[in-house]
């Protein structure tokens, strides 16, 4: 499931961004381009963090911005952005890996999140993905991790 969502079309690598808001805009741009989300979903993700704090930083170096599906999701989708230089989502919350979640309902994305959990529970796996210099390498890393029992 995760490997169907994170593809060449939805994975991006960048050197750096200036703000966490810019990071979310950039990370979500493939989903906007492919009409999976509407512009207002990006604003909703940003607003959610402004309101609740950087809780989307679920483990060191990783943020999973998301909002409610009613706030502009057209289809289940995910996108991934890696940064060579971290961007701060909050004090002491440097982030190198941003995975945007766009769910269509509360159940359809669960298998993809189970797969995502497999990646994020091992810090070495996160570092491996951040270290990748090409989209193909990121795809290979994800495939290998998800295939593990």
């Amino acid at each position, binding site marked *: 499931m995760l490997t169907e969502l994170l593809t060449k079309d939805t994975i991006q690598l960048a050197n750096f961004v200036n703000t966490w808001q810019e990071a979310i805009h950039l990370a979500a741009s493939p989903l906007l381009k492919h009409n999976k989300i509407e512009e207002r979903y990006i604003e909703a993700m940003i607003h*959610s963090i402004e*309101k*609740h*704090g*950087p*809780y*989307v930083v*679920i*483990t*060191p170096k*990783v943020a*999973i911005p*998301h*909002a*409610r*599906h009613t706030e502009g999701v057209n289809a289940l989708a995910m996108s991934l952005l890696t940064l060579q230089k971290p961007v701060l989502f909050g004090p002491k919350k440097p982030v190198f890996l941003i995975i945007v*979640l766009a*769910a269509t309902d*509360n159940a359809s*994305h*669960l298998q993809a*999140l*189970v797969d*995502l*959990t497999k990646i*994020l*529970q091992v810090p070495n796996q996160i570092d491996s993905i951040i270290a990748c210099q090409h989209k193909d390498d990121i795809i290979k890393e994800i495939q290998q991790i998800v295939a593990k029992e």
Partner: protein
Amino acid sequence: MKILVVCGNGLGSSFIMELNVKKALTELGKVAEVTHTDLASAKAEKADIYIGAEDIVNQLPEERGHIVSIVNMMSISEIKLKLIPLL
């Protein structure tokens, strides 16, 4: 025993953390009902333990039950450490 995992939107981070809380309970050999929800619903739902990111659970009134704030939501060891005294 009911444990409610709370996030800002009720999907995404709270579901991932629900998986991790269940894993932590299994490793501790404990049984509890674990579900996830958003902050607004959590304020109206009764549970023994409310668990989530610090930014989120700190917005819950203390009299609702035990409130557990987690820094690294992917860390099974942190979740276990903070739940043990409450189980």
